[in-house]
């Protein structure tokens, strides 16, 4: 655990140097990468560790974005609004988890997929509070220069990513992480042996919601404008899954490696195939699933992958 923490501290330290380069393009890319990292690491709690195929990332992201934005509309300071958004997503995940985590397999996947759709419809129709389909403008940050703003949001996302990483590292080596891996391998057996499966699963779900909610709120402030189809986009859920699959599910560094790699690929595809970029993305996903279903980390860590069931 100490070794992992050291490697991570070094990696985050290096990433923190990016703004010194100063170019706005790299700052934007870096902020997006850190956001993707938060989404991937968060999904890893429920999908990678507990093995529940959750598609709820988009729901948490949108909920966080709108909670943060509405809070700021009522005059709550920005950073406090982000925290509130994280707490809102946390509470929502806890309530939702108690209901949905009784389902398994396809049924859980679908139910979690549907949540984002329902939230989007609700936000769309609550025009007074959220602006509905017109979207919602956020107050501009107080920083004077555009560069300072970009740096500020970069460091905010970096802090959030570091926090998420710390949580996942801690979980991985704690009793909770052990219990979650038991649930993934055989839930009935884990239950028999005295693992409080409901509590553990809900905890994993809550962890997978809280940071995503905060990331959504930071994203909303960063862009100054949100609208329902953007923040409740099901692609957020899918991207998180693909990033974790790419990096290697269940491990601590896998999601981060996956996020960095995925963003690089996405950026290349965007740049060269703008008209067909989702198609190329789809093709990448197909190839990934067919040829590398356990992720890149499985190549470098054969021993680890042998431990895993099937």
């Amino acid at each position, binding site marked *: 655990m100490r070794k992992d923490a050291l490697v991570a501290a070094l990696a985050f330290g290096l990433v923190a140097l990016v703004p010194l380069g100063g170019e706005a393009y790299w700052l934007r890319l870096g902020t997006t990468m850190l956001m993707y990292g938060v989404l991937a690491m968060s999904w890893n709690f429920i999908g990678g560790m507990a093995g529940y*195929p959750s598609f709820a990332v988009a729901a948490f992201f949108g909920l966080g974005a709108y909670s943060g934005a509405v809070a700021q509309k009522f005059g709550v300071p920005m950073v406090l609004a982000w925290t509130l958004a994280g707490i809102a997503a946390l509470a929502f995940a806890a309530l939702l988890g108690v209901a949905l985590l009784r389902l398994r397999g396809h049924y859980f996947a679908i139910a979690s997929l549907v949540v984002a*759709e329902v939230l989007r419809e609700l936000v769309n129709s609550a025009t007074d509070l959220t602006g509905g389909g017109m979207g919602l403008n956020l107050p501009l940050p107080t920083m004077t220069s555009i560069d300072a703003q970009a740096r500020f949001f970069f460091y905010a996302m970096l802090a959030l990513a570091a926090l998420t990483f710390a949580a996942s590292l801690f979980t991985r080596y704690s009793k909770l992480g052990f219990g979650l891996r038991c649930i993934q391998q055989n839930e009935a057996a884990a239950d028999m042996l005295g693992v409080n499966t409901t509590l553990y699963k809900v905890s994993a779900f809550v962890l997978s919601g809280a940071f995503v909610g905060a990331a959504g709120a930071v994203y909303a402030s960063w862009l100054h404008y949100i609208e329902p189809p953007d923040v409740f986009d099901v692609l957020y859920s*899918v991207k998180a899954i693909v990033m974790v*699959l790419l990096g290697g599910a269940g491990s601590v560094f896998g999601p981060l490696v996956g996020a960095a790699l995925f963003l690089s690929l996405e950026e290349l595809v965007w740049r060269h195939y703008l008209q067909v970029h989702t*198609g190329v993305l*789809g093709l990448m996903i197909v190839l990934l*699933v067919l040829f590398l279903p356990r992720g890149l980390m499985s190549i470098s860590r054969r021993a680890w992958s042998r431990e895993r069931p099937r």
Partner: protein
Amino acid sequence: MLYLQILANGLVLGGLYACIAAGFSLVWGVLNVINILHGSFIVLGGYLAFFGYVEFGIHPFASIVIAAPLFFVLGYALQRALINRMIAAPVLLTLTLTFGLDLVLSNGMLAAFTADFRKLILEPPLGVATLGPVVMPVDRLAAMLLALALTGMLYLLLAKSRIGRAIVAVRMDREAAALMGVTVPRVYAITFGLGALMAGASGPLLAMIFPISPLGGPVYLGKAFVICVLGGLGSVPGAMLGGLLLGVVESFGALWFGPEHATTLSFVLLILILLLRPEGLLGRKGYA
């Protein structure tokens, strides 16, 4: 008398929903694969009908006959080439695989057909039928009857034909079916082909009523999900009942709560059913 009209609207909508869901439910029940492509197959079938009518003057109802074999071959090949490789993989991987394929297909349609909404308008129009207080456009009525006929044919195929019995056998117990001489991978491919066929054939029917857009797939997919859960997995009567029920619920929901809440209402229904009766209204336990 308003209620009678709303009920009729709901039943007509529901008949089409049943047809959408039957193939999806079959694939899910037999292969244990959620086919995210299903919605895009429906849209593609709609485009086939649209261009067939506009370019060659083929009546949309006739284009079903062209769409059906094409989609069967497409589904069969896709299953054989790609999906069969992942058939035993965890849920997450098969879901992600079909999602990736769907991104490719929907982006392909977007590039080929542009993002414009298109509407198939018959010339001359078929007019309306009046039965007592209920008024119904004839094209809708005909589409609904054809949808029910297609669904009925699928039911008969599964209940009576040799290959249909083999499909049902594989759904019940794959190992036992294999021991009885059923070639399971072939049955899988045929089942997937049938699912694609149902989607492709319901495309022209839906194109008669709803505008076609390359990104319309997820809406149909969502309906198919809800219906499968409502009616129970892998059974045609379940899809029929679930479809009709969803159609009626959406119609009355639109009346009482406003049309913008129709989706929310059906999803709330979905979650309630999942929690209270996860095997569906007509489902039996142990078939998943």
